[in-house]
């Protein structure tokens, strides 16, 4: 036990240096004025950006939900294939992750542009072109494309753990198709759903590159707001820190709600 504690020392100091200390600095900035006096003005000023916060949460939620809908059946198929084919399918899912994030998002710009690939294709097929770039839809598409693998990974890993014999047992007891899905597969994959949703929602709600590149100027998200306070023309690190803090609290709230789902599930298991 003592040895274990010794071994964990480097990690603990790492966490202190690069997580706890920066966090304290953020909190400090959030509650002080440029001259170093205590204030809650920064935090109360965040309220002005209420609509941006709501929009961020809304877009991230939509993207997360659609990712889940796409990833769930896909992950199930991958998890049941197994062997070589399964590995290759998994590779294909992960492949875009090897490319630079900016590059991937640029690629979507060229696809969705007014004279981009999508519209060229639509015109070629005699459909009228659509206006997607610089809209909320483009932002959501970008979020889904970039974060989908984070949904697939945890789902595949929980689904792989479902023993085929458990499904056979359900069949043996009279379940078929749909009831196996609702009574066995969904409850058993809940932990994967929770971590997948968290892993997609958290980066999506705080993104600024996607919204800037695909959303044009009109779709500012919280991430953009924070970015502007540090690097943009409205330089105000104190407000930036306050917004970050609020965002962090919001994410923690969302996560604890999600974990509540998982806990309830666990309770059914343990009590």
């Amino acid at each position, binding site marked *: 036990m003592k040895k274990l504690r010794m071994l964990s020392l480097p990690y603990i100091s790492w966490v202190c240096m690069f997580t706890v200390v920066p966090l304290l600095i953020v909190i400090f900035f959030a509650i002080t004025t440029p001259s170093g006096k205590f204030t809650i003005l920064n935090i109360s000023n965040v309220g002005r950006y209420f609509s941006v916060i709501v929009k961020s949460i809304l877009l991230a939620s939509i993207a997360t939900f659609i990712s889940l809908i796409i990833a769930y059946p896909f992950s199930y198929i991958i998890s049941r294939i197994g062997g070589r084919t399964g590995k290759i399918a998994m590779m294909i899912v992960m492949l875009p992750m090897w490319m630079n994030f900016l590059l991937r998002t640029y690629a979507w710009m060229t696809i969705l542009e007014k004279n981009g690939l999508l519209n060229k294709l639509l015109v070629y097929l005699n459909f009228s072109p659509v206006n997607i770039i610089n809209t909320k839809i483009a932002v959501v598409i970008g979020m889904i494309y970039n974060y989908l693998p984070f949904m697939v990974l945890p789902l595949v890993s929980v689904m792989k753990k479902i023993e085929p014999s*458990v499904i*056979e*047992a359900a069949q043996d007891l009279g379940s078929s198709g749909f009831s196996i899905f609702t009574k066995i597969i969904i*409850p*058993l994959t809940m932990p994967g759903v929770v971590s997948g949703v968290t892993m997609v929602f958290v980066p999506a709600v705080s993104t600024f590159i996607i919204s800037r590149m695909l959303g044009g100027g009109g779709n500012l998200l919280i991430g953009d707001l924070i970015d502007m306070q540090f690097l943009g023309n409205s330089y105000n690190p104190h407000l930036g820190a306050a917004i970050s803090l609020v965002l962090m609290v919001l994410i923690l709230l969302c996560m604890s709600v999600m974990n509540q789902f998982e806990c309830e*599930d666990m309770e*059914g*298991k*343990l*009590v």
Partner: protein
Amino acid sequence: MKNNVILRLFDICAEFDDELILNKINLRIYDKSFVTLLGPSGCGKTTTLRIIGGFEKPTSGKLFFNSLDITDLPPYKRKVNTVFQKYALFPHLNVFENIAFGLKIRKFSKKEIERNVAAMLELVNLKGFEKRGIERLSGGQQQRVAIARALVNRPKVLLLDEPLGALDLKLRKEMQTELKNIQQQLEITFVYVTHDQEEALTMSDVVVVMNNGQIQQIGSPIDIYNEPQNAFVADFIGESNIINGIMYKDYMVGFLGHDFICVDKGFACNEEVDVVIRPEDVKLLEAGNGRLEGVVESIIFKGVHYEMKVDSAGYSWTVHSTLPKNVGSLVGIDIDPNDIHIMKKMEI
């Protein structure tokens, strides 16, 4: 006294990757009987059971349930329930919910479910465990949940795949008796898979001995033990001494350089045969007596009897006796004509 045939396997064959796993299995299972599939690991017991349960399709052959062809019926439509080799309990449900699963699917009322599950918990001695999570149960308790979960549906036939495999000897014995009682009490047909010959002999009405995907013998435990049809069965059911012999004529066999009178007949003149002799049927005498002579090589105490290895003219006999002999001592060996079992050589 014979009931009707509830399950009939007709020329069932199964293949995996072009390899023949089951070779023409023909078997009639009578209603309310306790039938055991017995055989070494990999001989196809689980595959046979999975075909009956509907989880595997035979490559050829037919399966009849009450003389209805059910070969193509999916598992959820069969009046058969399974206790799986590794239990396969639902990890997200507690004991009560696991057992209630089948009844809920079949839309029983809440009251009925509660009554039936309570009766099952009583039967398998798990009262008070309703709310327990599966992973907080011991192996034996999980086992009993698996049995209760299957039994609560009142299947006509219950399939059990080595259900006691994971238990220690004492619990195993207890559960054997318990299972047998349950089977008789509820009058359900049991098809039971095991590779433990003692378990098969003590529990079953009918034992089906399998090897390499083929049925070697079907019979009552007493038949199987006393009248094995070939050397494989003889060896698998209890240890046996299997010696190459020559059948000179009816009632006369020669092995280890001596002629012995026996009770078997009907072999070709000078046919090569397997001579099978049970360890407890080998008589050890004072040196100089008996037709064979040997040297005691080793002796182990086995609880009720001693197990000795006795070397005689290059053959090492396995002998069970309550009277120990000293290692290295010279002994006489003889066998009663009744205890010499002659079997056709197996064609492989």
